[in-house]
């Protein structure tokens, strides 16, 4: 009976993956079709034209540069803020902790449009005009919460007696932070920076309301799609997907190599143990 059930589940998994991946393939495929509209059907022949057009489209590259600048700025601001907030909340208990936690989490759940508009209105009151700097601040307001959650989780496995020992041995406060706390947090800070960077690249809603006249990649693609599209967007999409795929594969291979090393080390240890017993 389980065999039949398992077969159905495997089938479902395969269908689900097809459902997720086929649209992306269709979109990528359309970038090679020699047709003015982005589609795979009818197929009018193979062309590299859209990649060449993409290469010559200066505005796309300018928007791409903006996107990267914003993403770097968001990561640079959100990581210290998130880490500081996590350290602070980790030392609190009781009611004040849960209230503060609620306020920190709320921006994750708030719609991007609301964050974008409130950021725009607030800074406008202070006579700061719209532009990508406001997009950075708006994005930080919720991305810092992701960093906070990651660092807070990492802090749970932190052994505070290490800090006590360091203080007893005469370390300064700065040394305790730099030599003991931060090294323990590095993985979480790295993950936080990566998440901040990619969340920022993805962001559309906040950027749309705060950007002023500047374009980021998502906003630019959006305006392109609305105002009549050529398959250059597909070419761009395909490149982005391949880039993502490359990153994912690299990550997976690195993980496998680590797992293999670990297994080898374990086997080595077991052999040594056996030899000792003998």
């Amino acid at each position, binding site marked *: 009976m389980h065999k039949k*059930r398992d077969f159905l*589940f495997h089938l*479902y*998994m395969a269908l*689900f*993956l097809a459902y*997720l*991946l086929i649209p*992306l393939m269709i*979109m990528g495929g359309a970038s090679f079709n020699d047709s003015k*509209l982005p*589609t*795979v*059907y009818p197929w009018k022949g193979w062309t590299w034209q859209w990649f060449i057009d993409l290469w010559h489209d200066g505005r796309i590259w300018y928007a791409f540069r903006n996107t990267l600048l914003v993403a770097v700025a968001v990561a640079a601001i959100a990581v210290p803020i998130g880490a*500081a*907030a996590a*350290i*602070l909340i980790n030392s609190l208990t009781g009611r004040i902790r849960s209230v*503060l936690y*609620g*306020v*920190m*989490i*709320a921006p994750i*759940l*708030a*719609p991007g*449009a*609301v964050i974008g*508009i*409130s*950021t725009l*209105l*607030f800074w*406008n009151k202070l006579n700061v005009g719209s532009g990508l700097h406001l997009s950075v601040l708006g994005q*930080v*307001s919720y991305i810092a*919460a992701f960093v906070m959650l990651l660092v807070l989780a990492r802090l749970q496995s932190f052994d505070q007696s290490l*800090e006590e020992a360091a*203080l007893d041995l005469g370390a*300064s*406060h*700065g040394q*305790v932070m730099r030599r003991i706390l931060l090294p323990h947090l590095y993985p979480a800070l790295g993950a936080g920076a990566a998440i901040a960077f*990619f969340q920022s690249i993805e962001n*559309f*809603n906040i950027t749309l*309301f705060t950007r002023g006249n500047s374009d980021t990649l998502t906003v630019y*693609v*959006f305006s392109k*799609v*609305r105002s009549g599209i050529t398959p250059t967007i597909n070419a761009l*999409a395909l490149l*982005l997907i391949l880039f*993502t*795929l490359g990153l*994912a594969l690299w*990550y*997976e291979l690195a*993980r496998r190599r680590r797992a293999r090393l670990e297994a080898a080390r374990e086997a080595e240890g077991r052999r040594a143990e056996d030899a000792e017993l003998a």
Partner: protein
Amino acid sequence: MRDLLRRYGAGLTAGFIGLTVFWLLILVILPNLTLFESSFRPYLPVVDIGGPKDVYSLGNYMKVFGAPVDASFFGITFQLPVHIKIFFGTVYYSALVTVITFLLAYPLAYYLAKIVSPKSLPTLFLLLFVPLWVSEILRSFAWFIILAFKGPLNALLLNIGIIDQPIRFIAGYTPVIVGLVYTYVLFMVFPIYNAIQSLDTNQIEAAEDLGSPWWRTHWRVILPHAKPGIASGSVMVFMLSAGSLLVPTLLGSTSAQWFTQTIQQWMLEALDWNTGAAYAFLLLILCTVFVSLVMRVFRVRLSDIAK
């Protein structure tokens, strides 16, 4: 707090507090208060700002009651102000998207957590993550191509003879739902997977050994255990759907407006930021109500939802 001072000294502690205050006060609380305050002010030319006409009123909120149009619900047709219709349409279809993603995601999450061999998990996760990393706009753009009138889906259906006339898919709310489900289904899969994974497999086997049919095992053992995951996934999917602007603009038509599009029109087309603020505030209220409702129904805390 005293603990922080002892460990890191006054300077660093002040730094931690300063950064947190900057975040919560300058980036979160004050902007939202400004939003709230602006939403009660009229939209005026620059010279009139601060003048006698600049008084608080509910005028911006009253605009939702303007411009009645025909609406029908379960076959009953009645008049409804257009923005109210859009608002409830957004709520209704976002809830529908949430239900559909749950139905799609639950078997998958169960499969990943309890059936598939742990060895192939990393590969499967990698395959699932790839679409998640492709940006939202490209994912809806993919469906824009697929659903086009002369697009591949119509061609396929015509060729295998299911239909003999191409269907105009991009009409009404259907394409928006298709796009939203595709874009956000994974936000439902992962929380439910996490929840089911922490269930002891022995409990499932015990239920089976005691003669429970599969549906009862799910209903009495697995679903209750997966509750926090379902709550978390539902909140994420509903919020993302109701707040989405990309998908409805790309895949929707003029007859199928989303509330975020109305907000965007006030803000960026009418340039009436005050009414935009009022509408944004309505969206915020909707989300707050939804989150508290889910927390009440599923009896979970905020820290269970945001993980």
